[in-house]
């Protein structure tokens, strides 16, 4: 295998693979900025193991093919010892087997698909996975909202959306509710009237829409114009919806990794600094990428060397409060942490909803 060829004195190289271009670049650039911010902080504080940290970011356009070549470049040409990435699950899945084989520590900040960490003990993530999140939303719906009938509208061509659908459904039905209708669409669809008409016929209490905010904001408008009154529920993909939708989403809930309005000092410091540096408030993925960088560098520091074996062991010992909460790893290298449910409420201006912390749901 290729051990980090960098001499004991050179910088410690960390790779990152993010979609800087392509359809989800909005997420990728924020995550990249957060990673660089973290690395700069670490270097300003004197680095780790007495060495500076260098982050090398490669763009994969959220295309698994590019993720693979970016990974190979980072590992064989640049000699990175760990990877923060990839962003989407399908991209991460394209490299997990390679990372495991080459003993490269990989920590994905945001790939929530359950199977991402299956490839082996070198693969970690800083976000919770779809099963967990689906369960959180389902129990919130059943217990807190007292919903009995749920409908789901999901993206059938997106693993994230599909994964959440399955776990939500399983948990909701286990709790005693019924999923009265389950409709889908394909990535890029803009018209959901057909599905919504069908859903309306089943009169659900809640409508679970596990997708990203840009699609959700479109769906929400059509939900309202169809006169469908069920409470809408979402997951972490809804992050940023408050800035991208109007009053039609008011009254909906979604699960997230953290709530920027929380009173935690870590959160406050991170949000303030990020906003100052980049001019926009960080989204949840940025926070996760920031945390992932720290989890990795902390482990290197704790391991006292760049030996992958040692870092891996140190990673497993992580137990600390980060921006997105207290994090430690379970046996499958998923973080053990709590999720928050946030509610969308009327903002100060019309058509500018605000986010309100609703509940913390623990595993």
């Amino acid at each position, binding site marked *: *295998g290729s051990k980090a060829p960098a001499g004991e004195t050179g910088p410690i190289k960390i790779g990152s693979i993010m979609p800087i271009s392509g359809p989800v670049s909005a997420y990728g650039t924020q995550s990249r900025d957060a990673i660089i911010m973290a690395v700069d902080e670490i270097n300003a504080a004197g680095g780790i193991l007495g060495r500076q940290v260098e982050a090398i970011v490669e763009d994969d356009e959220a295309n698994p093919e590019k993720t693979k070549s970016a990974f190979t470049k980072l590992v064989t040409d640049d000699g990175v010892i760990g990877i923060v990435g990839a962003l989407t699950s399908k991209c991460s899945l394209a490299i997990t*087997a390679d990372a495991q084989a080459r003993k490269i520590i990989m920590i994905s900040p945001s790939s929530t698909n359950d199977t991402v960490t299956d*490839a082996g003990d070198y693969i970690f993530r800083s976000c919770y996975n779809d099963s967990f999140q689906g369960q959180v939303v389902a129990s919130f719906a059943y217990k807190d909202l007292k919903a009995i009938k749920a409908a789901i509208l999901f993206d059938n*061509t997106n693993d994230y959306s*599909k994964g959440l659908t399955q776990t939500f459904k399983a948990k909701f039905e286990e709790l005693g509710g019924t999923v009265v209708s389950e409709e889908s669409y394909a990535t890029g669809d803009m018209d959901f009237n057909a599905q919504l008409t069908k859903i309306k016929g089943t009169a659900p209490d809640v409508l679970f829409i596990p997708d990203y905010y840009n699609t959700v904001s479109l769906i929400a408008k059509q939900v309202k114009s169809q006169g469908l009154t069920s409470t809408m529920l979402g997951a972490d993909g809804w992050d940023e919806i408050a800035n991208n939708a109007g009053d039609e989403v008011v009254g909906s809930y979604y699960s997230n990794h953290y709530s920027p309005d929380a009173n935690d000092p870590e959160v406050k410091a991170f949000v303030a600094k990020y906003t100052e540096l980049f001019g926009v408030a960080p989204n949840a993925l940025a926070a996760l990428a920031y945390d992932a960088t720290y989890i990795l560098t902390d482990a290197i520091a704790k391991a006292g060397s760049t030996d992958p074996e040692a870092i891996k062991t140190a990673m497993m010992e992580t137990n600390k409060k980060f921006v997105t909460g207290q994090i430690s790893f379970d046996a499958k290298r998923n973080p053990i942490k709590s999720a928050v449910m946030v509610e969308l409420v009327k903002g100060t201006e019309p058509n500018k909803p605000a986010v309100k912390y609703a509940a913390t749901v623990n595993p």
Partner: protein
Amino acid sequence: MINLKNRAFNILTLTLVSTVIFVILLILQYFKVISEYTGLLLTLAGIYVIVSLSLNLITGFTGQLSLGHAGFMCVGAYTTAIAIIKYGMPIPIALILGGIMTALFGLAIGIPTLRLRGDYLAITTLGFGEIIRVIIVNLDSLTGGAAGLKGIPTFSNTGDFIIDAIIRFSWVYIIMILVIAVIHNLINSSQGRAIISIREDDIASTSMGVNVAYYKVYAFTLSAFIAGVGGGLYAIFFGYLNPAMFGWLNSVNFVVIVVLGGMGSITGTIIAAVVFTYLQEWLRVFADFRLVIFGLALIILMIFWPKGLMGNKELSITGFIRQLRSGEFSPRQIKTKWNEFRQKKGRKKDGRAD
């Protein structure tokens, strides 16, 4: 036309040249002169060459625009992967199976669409490609659906990454050479001429005794077979498949490669496929500007080389030597050509003035 006199020489040079290039590349990779990353790109380029050549067979040589080649690749990839994962088949058999399965799809598409021409055929193949994707997304239990298919064992697992990379490269390279040979030999034969005549004028073609329908379907099926094998290699190469890897925009990429290389030119396609693969990587540093540059490049290339790099000609070493000998590249010749070029430019300016 086939140069009959040089027949032994041709076969010999072809085998020799390809073997020598192969061995050199292997040695370079082994001694890390070519980095593993470059090696990976070379391998990927090989797969692109295979699929692009198969597309060229129908688009360049038969003259039928297909926008569904990623769909063919997809069928081959999934078939091969499933054959290996679920049924434990050895790689060669799985690859052939992938090819056959795709050929069946090709046949199923080729026959009903025989009457379609040009853009109507293009949109139909695009539709088939998308239907294939819809099927694969919905066959969750077999294909992993939207989450993709993981854990496809790679070509070898020696524990030494360099050796593994070399083995992987060899698989792709050898199959690529075979594909080149098959297409080249087919095109330069009576059957190949029949295929080309369809592109030129199908009414004249059928009037000269060419069974147009047969050869169209033949080319379509063979093309699908090769694309399927390419897809199979891709699956093993990646170890992971996702339906999103085979969208219609990927099909468009293959069309771009074929046109840039020159419709109906084998060497053109090869060069374009390799350049395309590398360009994708090199331009990555430009982040969001990458595709801006790419778009611009496409426009400029087409305006200046509307027939692609090679037109329908082939790059040939012997031809090049012949040109050298004939003094085509003698200093004097080059000088006159340069002068002609300058004159032409000068005149263009005048042209604008009036």
